[in-house]
């Protein structure tokens, strides 16, 4: 039996399935070079090839597909933001996620379970009331729920009135959902590659040649490649890559630490978060409890974990769910969040004419993967930023027209 299995495994008749073709040499030039093979970069490549007939595209990454912050987020999908421009943008993304498995023919494990954000202070209740009204006005399902309703939505939540920060109310967002982050990246990668997009992993961009305000070529550790357009989609390294093109960004990079427990039977259906306790908790399809927190207190490019942040995150989580105190932590990690002053992304045009930005994704990047790819592709094809991303343009910092977004859960405000 083992020999047969080995024979079967090594037989050339049954080759392993490759989601993307084997690596090959870089061409001399491409229409579009996308820096970063994470969800956003691959989604952009997919939309360029599928909807704009632009398939002379290379996606370059110093690591591997979806191995950066695409693999380090907590896979929350929601659209209950507070500024009308952000609500419209993320709502479009949630709509795309609903149909993504069909679109890509790749199971995204999308599951709409609803998302409950908890308020422990009068100030939070007021903000939530505003958020609920803005959301309803724009067709997003959000409502304020009282303590009794919270008990019904999440029976295992600690509703004690004598705890440090008793739960006062919640923002219940029925559209809230989750999906498998690897499937998002690989789904886009596979379909983009089938349409001719080249995905070059382990290809580090080392410089960007700019001449007379235009990108001419991108230098990599495997040679220099010419291009008509270049896009950066490098969450966690936005400032470093933009600097190669001579662009300064309003971005500061902080680690954000998260962890999962060992798997247990399903007991927590909705995604729960608390903006006062800076924690968000959900149970994955395989039963692990995912716990994410706020960003670290100071800027850093290292994804190391720290005991003090993990401790405070666990303490806050146990205040909400004392029932998981006996669970053991299975894995812990950190991602790098590119925080912007107004908690909105930086998308579209840059001071370099054919260099396009998809940056500043802080703690809100994963949920925007489909829509940002769609918008970036359309923007590139028309060489003009589409209306949906206009509020997120870099120029807003020159004209003092910021898009203040206070609905980013883990954000420190």
């Amino acid at each position, binding site marked *: 039996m083992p020999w047969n299995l080995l024979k079967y495994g090594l037989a050339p008749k049954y080759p392993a399935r490759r989601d993307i073709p084997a690596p090959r040499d870089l061409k001399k030039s491409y229409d579009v070079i996308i820096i970063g093979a994470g969800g956003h970069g691959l989604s952009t490549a997919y939309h360029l090839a599928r909807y704009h007939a632009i398939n002379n595209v290379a996606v370059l990454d110093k690591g591997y597909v979806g191995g950066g912050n695409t693999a380090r987020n907590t896979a929350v999908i929601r659209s209950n933001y507070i500024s009308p421009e952000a609500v419209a943008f993320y709502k479009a993304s949630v709509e795309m996620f609903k149909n993504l498995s069909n679109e890509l023919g790749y199971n995204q494990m999308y599951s709409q379970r609803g998302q409950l954000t908890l308020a422990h202070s009068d100030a939070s209740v007021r903000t939530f009331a505003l958020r609920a009204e803005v959301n309803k006005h724009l067709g997003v399902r959000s409502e304020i729920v009282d303590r009794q309703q919270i008990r019904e939505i999440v029976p295992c939540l600690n509703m004690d009135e004598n705890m440090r920060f008793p739960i006062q109310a919640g923002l219940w967002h029925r559209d809230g959902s989750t999906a498998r982050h690897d499937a998002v990246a690989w789904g886009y990668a596979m379909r983009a590659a089938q349409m001719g997009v080249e995905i070059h992993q382990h290809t580090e961009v080392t410089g960007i040649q700019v001449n007379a305000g235009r990108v001419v070529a991108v230098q990599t550790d495997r040679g220099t490649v010419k291009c008509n357009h270049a896009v950066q989609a490098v969450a966690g390294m936005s400032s470093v890559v933009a600097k190669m093109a001579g662009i300064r*960004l309003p971005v500061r990079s902080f680690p954000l630490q998260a962890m999962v427990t060992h798997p247990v039977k399903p007991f927590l259906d909705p995604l729960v978060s608390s903006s006062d306790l800076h924690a968000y908790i959900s149970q994955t399809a395989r039963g692990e409890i995912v716990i994410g927190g706020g960003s670290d*207190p100071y800027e850093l490019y290292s994804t190391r974990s720290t005991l003090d942040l993990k401790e405070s995150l666990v303490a806050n989580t146990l205040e909400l769910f004392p029932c998981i105190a006996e669970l053991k932590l299975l894995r812990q990690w950190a991602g790098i969040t590119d925080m912007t002053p107004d908690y909105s992304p930086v998308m579209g045009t840059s001071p370099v004419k054919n260099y396009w930005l998809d940056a500043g994704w802080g703690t809100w990047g994963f949920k925007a993967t489909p829509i940002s790819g769609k918008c970036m592709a359309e923007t590139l094809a028309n060489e003009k930023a589409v209306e949906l991303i206009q509020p997120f343009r870099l120029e807003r910092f*020159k004209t003092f027209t910021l898009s203040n977004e206070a609905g980013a859960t883990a954000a420190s405000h």
Partner: protein
Amino acid sequence: MKIMKCPLNGPRNISEFICFGEVSKMPCPKKVSDDEWADFIWMSNNSAGVVQEWWCHSATAYWFIAERNTVTDEILKTYPASDVFTERIDF
């Protein structure tokens, strides 16, 4: 717990300190152009490497300068602000 050496209080837990970002020179508000001012207000070097930063020991409200590697999280040096700023700056 990570330890930072405060020039005034000696080695203390990092949680007692607040980081206030890279040391940068403020352009003169009366002479500067709008674009340069916006750049000073919003943009950040966000350097990956050794940076010079303002830190404050919150318990004693003592401000000082630290040199830190933002890739390795190593604190290389801490010193009083008077080492860098030898003259009074008026706003």
